[in-house]
């Protein structure tokens, strides 16, 4: 479970760029929570704070009751992160890429190899497991990055714009994977600026704009809250403009 309370972060010399201003929400286990917002709404900064990469200026964030600042390394063992930057090592094979992360998470030997085999079987990576990732397609690279993020079987999974640059087949594959993880009782936090993406997948939606939460709830709650009939209209109404609504 992710519990975010009045989280704030500013950048720049004098903190003039306020990326996140007092965000609070809860992402429970067994659900997919969507962070929806236009580009520059603060989604990446928010996810980086939960992923312990960026320290908050104010407020707190906890993963399974562990503080992301004080218990940084304990949090890292519990989370799997598919960040916006998802570079692989092109000279290593798919298996070696995932094995590296497994070892950094304290796995080794037969249990690690068995875990990789299982992940590769689910993701359809088995045939290319021993090939260097240099020549992989975007979809194949994405799958390796997912396997890498899940190698230690994390309970909480953070995904920053995971569908960026993916073709439709890869997007469907990704959705199926995320639903499977939800069925296993994982806590998934998923950011996107594409409304359809979030509507298709998420149990609850946190709408962000200019670093603030402007709405929070299920798709139908949001539609009701905005007094509109479609989620798209609700989104526009909640954001107060049509900016950044690229689908």
């Amino acid at each position, binding site marked *: 479970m992710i519990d975010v309370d009045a989280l704030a972060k500013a950048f720049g010399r004098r903190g003039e760029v306020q990326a996140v201003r007092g965000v609070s929400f809860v992402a429970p286990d067994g659900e997919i929570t969507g962070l929806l917002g236009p580009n520059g709404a603060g989604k990446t900064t928010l996810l980086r704070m939960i992923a312990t*990469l960026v320290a908050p200026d104010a407020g707190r964030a906890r993963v399974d009751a562990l503080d992301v600042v004080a218990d940084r390394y304990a949090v890292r063992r519990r*989370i799997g992160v598919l960040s916006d*930057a998802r570079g692989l090592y092109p000279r290593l094979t798919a298996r070696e890429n995932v094995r590296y992360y497994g*070892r950094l998470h304290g796995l080794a030997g037969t249990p690690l190899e068995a875990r990789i085999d299982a992940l590769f079987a689910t993701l359809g990576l088995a045939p290319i497991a021993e090939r260097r990732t240099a020549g992989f397609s975007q979809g194949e690279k994405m799958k390796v990055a997912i396997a890498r993020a899940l190698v230690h079987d994390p309970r909480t999974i953070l995904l920053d714009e995971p569908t960026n640059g993916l073709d439709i087949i890869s997007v469907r594959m990704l959705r199926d994977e995320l639903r499977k993880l939800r069925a296993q009782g994982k806590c998934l936090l998923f950011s996107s600026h594409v409304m359809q993406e979030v509507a298709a997948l998420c149990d609850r939606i946190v709408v962000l704009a200019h670093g603030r939460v402007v709405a929070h709830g299920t798709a139908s709650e949001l539609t009701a809250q905005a007094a509109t009939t479609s989620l798209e209209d609700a989104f526009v109404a909640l954001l107060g403009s049509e900016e950044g609504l690229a689908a």
Partner: protein
Amino acid sequence: MRDTVARTHAIVRKELVDTFRDRRSGTVTLLSSILAGPILLILIFNLMARQVDRAHDLTLPVKGAERAPAVVAFLERQQVTIATAPADYEDAIRRGDLDVVLVVDNGFAADVAQGKPGRVQLVYDRSRDRARPSIEQAETLLAAYNRLWGEQRLLLRGVASTVGNPLRIESADLATPQQSGALVLFLVAYYGLFAALMGGMAVALDTTAGERERQSLEPLLTTPARPMEIVVGKWLAVVAFDALVVTLTLTGFYLTLAFAPLPPVGVPFLFGAREFGRFLVVLVPMILMLPAILLYVGSRARAYREAQANVSVLLFVVSLIPLVQLFMQRKEPSWLMLVPVSAQYSLLNTSLRGEAPAVTQLALSWLAPLVLIVVALGAFARRLSRESILSST
């Protein structure tokens, strides 16, 4: 603690596999380090052999040989081949076709007959290194003839030849046979240092700036690996590769000198197993220090090319220091051992002269590198904990 060792070990292993599969930083560096010694030595030895040949069989074009037959006869007795100087001999010297030309003055015979000094002129271009042995030999021979002639004149007048030569100059060259061939000494020591710098360069930049450029750093930072573990793991991997490159380079020198058919140049130059070992001992602080600095410099850049530009300053300093020392030509001050690179260059030269570096000097030469390693690795770890290291998207 056990986790720390396991994670650091995982990082070292991954970095080494990555490096050996990389054509740019791995294969090319390894190949050039193996070939550097043989190519360099064969070039230098052939150059020196040619200089020695030139000095031994001096061919001296003379203008107006018929005006000074005694001088010409003396030179011929000294194994000099006398040739007729071409009309455009000055241009020929400028072009480098001729090393030195002797011009006998028109009034030579008349001057000598009247008891005045006969004028001869040596024409040469001293800026040409190749010509220098010929020039020096011609000068020495003319000076010798001058003295001989003078002594004969004094004898004719019943004066002992010592009257005109109150000073007898004797030279005692204390250089052991290995101490000659300074150029080769310089280059081998220089190249040993250079190998320690170049060996780790491409790898260190690839694993820092390259990792950032490929966007694989941010995911790495979400794993439980501590910044210091990442830093030490990467450092050990680069150090291992650097040590391999230095060893291969020195092996190249050793094998070439031991087995290659190098022309005999009268330099019983010594680089045997003992010197090989001493070189490695002297270079250890460099093999540890330069990768640490390279990693820090690499971590400051967002992309490989940017890092290459930043590292050129380091390259400049490390390659310039030995040159400065070469041109200083003074007795080295005792604090030199505290200056990294300088100390190592000086100790490498000591080893090449066939002497063992003093233990106190070796110990002193470790001080500054140790401090710099700690500072560089600490700064690298601090950069990894900073938010600004993340890709700005």
